[in-house]
């Protein structure tokens, strides 16, 4: 992985360097607040967004799980400092709590979960996306009907360019992934259906 991270940029003289972000719908417009744009875009694709403070984050996770009617939940290791407080809050709320890493090896058990709780590597303001990695768990964001994700305000990057061009992804591991709202399909006569293979409910707690 180190070899990849140290690859010099613009190594091919025939390809112009792009220092600035392109003017695309996936970028922040001048003067926009990243947090406001994130919330607007995430809500536009049916994500529930709630702003909480650091002290209230763990109990907000438990409340979000209760609101979803979850019983069995798994927690991903990428919650960092919040891992233990979230575990405690969920247990106090009477939920059955496991670590995602313990559940994941048994596919059937993972699929029987009501909800997963993860952190993220980053979030993209302009697209309302959450960025997870192999460390989070490839299927952690979409194996259960509900996904609760904790996003710290300092993890929010402006747009797609800032994500793929920056150093954020140096910690990506074997893969990185963006998810923007609940799973959806419009295959049957263009009728939009949520929760096809992934979650029907995505709840983001934005820690500000």
């Amino acid at each position, binding site marked *: 992985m180190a070899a990849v991270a140290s690859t010099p940029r613009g190594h091919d003289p025939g390809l112009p360097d792009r220092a600035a972000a392109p003017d695309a719908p996936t970028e922040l417009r001048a003067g926009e607040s990243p947090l406001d744009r994130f919330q607007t875009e995430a809500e536009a694709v049916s994500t529930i967004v709630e702003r909480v403070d650091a002290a209230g984050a763990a109990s907000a996770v438990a409340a979000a799980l209760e609101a979803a009617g979850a019983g069995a939940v798994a927690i991903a290791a990428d919650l960092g400092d919040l891992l233990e407080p979230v575990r405690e809050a969920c247990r106090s709320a009477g939920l059955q709590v496991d670590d995602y890493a313990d559940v994941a090896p048994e596919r059937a058990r993972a699929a029987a979960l009501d909800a997963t709780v993860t952190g993220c590597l980053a979030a993209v303001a302009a697209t309302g996306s959450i960025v997870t990695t192999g460390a989070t768990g490839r299927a952690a964001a979409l194996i259960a009907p509900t996904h609760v994700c904790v996003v710290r305000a300092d993890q929010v990057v402006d747009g*797609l360019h800032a994500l793929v061009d920056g150093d954020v992804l140096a910690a990506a*591991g074997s893969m990185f992934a963006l998810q923007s709202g609940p*799973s959806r399909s419009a295959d049957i006569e263009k*009728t939009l259906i949520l929760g096809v293979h*992934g979650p029907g409910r995505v709840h983001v707690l934005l820690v500000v």
Partner: protein
Amino acid sequence: MSATTPREDAEVGGRPLPPGWAAPAHQPGADSLADTTFEERARENLARPFQRTAIANATDHTVFALQRRFAGTAHDALRDEARRIRAHAITNLPTYLEQWVDRAEARGTQVHFAADEAEARRIVAGLCAERGVGRVVKSKSMASEEVSLNSALEGAGIDVVETDLGEFVVQAMGDRPSHVIAPILHRTQGEVHELFSAMAGEDLPDDPEALTGFAREGLRHAFLTADAGISGGNFLIAETGEVAMVTNEGNGRLTTSLPRIHIALVGIEKMLPRRTDLAVLLPLLTGHGTGQQITTYVSVLGGPRGAGEPDGPEEMHVVLLDGGRSALLGGEFEEALHCIRCGACQNVCPVYRQVGGHAYGWVYGGPIGAVLTPLFRGQADGGELSHATTLCGACDDICPVRIPLHDLLLGLRRRRVAEDVAPLSERLAFRAWGLAWRHPATYRASTAVARAGLAVLARDGVVSRRVPGLARWTATRDLVLGRRR
């Protein structure tokens, strides 16, 4: 955890599969296009109820969403940049392929190279056989349609389950996709209801949510029991050796996360030099494909499960498919390789909107299908498709990477003429016409003769019956004679 699934276990959601479900009757690519003509297929499709309305509704919806999506942005500049990136990547494809393979292998991905369709089938079937794979889940992949992968795997005794909702319906019906983005654009909710009810053995509620729920339940079972996941790929990133993939349903992510083996079948032309190029190409792919800012799921996969990661496949294989692509490098039709398969040209094509994707006879429909089919399959097997267009140029206008589809179609027509495919009478007629219209006097003489001749056949200035030599035109259209000034 995932013992090899025996063949007799073929079922969906604990329910036995109806006859024919696991072995689709019709496999694209397996049949020769020479059996039917475009005209015959178009006629058949034009007669289908619902289809023309459905295509118009769906494609208009997507095109309007596209226009709203890019309003207020420098859309043209973005497309110019995308074109530069794609042109550069294709011009330098051998270099970037080498770089991609080096980086991918360094990250633990096993890379295979398939020169043609048969080799791709052999490689994938071989990987499955060597590893005792009994069941495969697939996420939508046009490359796998190109090589008719499903029938090859089924022939090897492997249970194959398409997991994209539309592809699941296509597979169960023994049908094939009619649009690169929306595979069952041509099917009604009623048909899906009928199919799923038959599979369930009970009358399911006739609403999209319940029907989707039925599919989800069955496909979850497939995901949990599959030994391998087979996906396509939207981009290869040379800088990092990664494969990028977009989906909305999440089936692509589950396909590449849950089974112990992941195999991606990707056309070699999907190359991007750098990760940063995703910032240009992704919004164009999703914006032009569905009108979305970004698809619900984007996965950028750089190898098998890493140390300390809780899930993911033990092995990642990428099969790089040539299948006629490298033959286009450096030639007149190289720009066809710039395509990112968004389907926008299909949405605006007046021919596609009437006849649908199946009329094109192979995997790709619409303008890009009319270009790629003869290039990948040969003139004899699709050369006529260069005439399945009105040359209106709407495809050029909407292409996110500015492929001059109109010029490529004209080029293919020229090539067809050069290869003497047109009948002698047609060639002589056009030659005579060309000579006659070269000088004012002969031009005037020819129009006078034509006018006199047509006047005999016309009634009130309109020719409605078949005119010798022009029968193909006048059989379906009136020829209105101009008035002499």
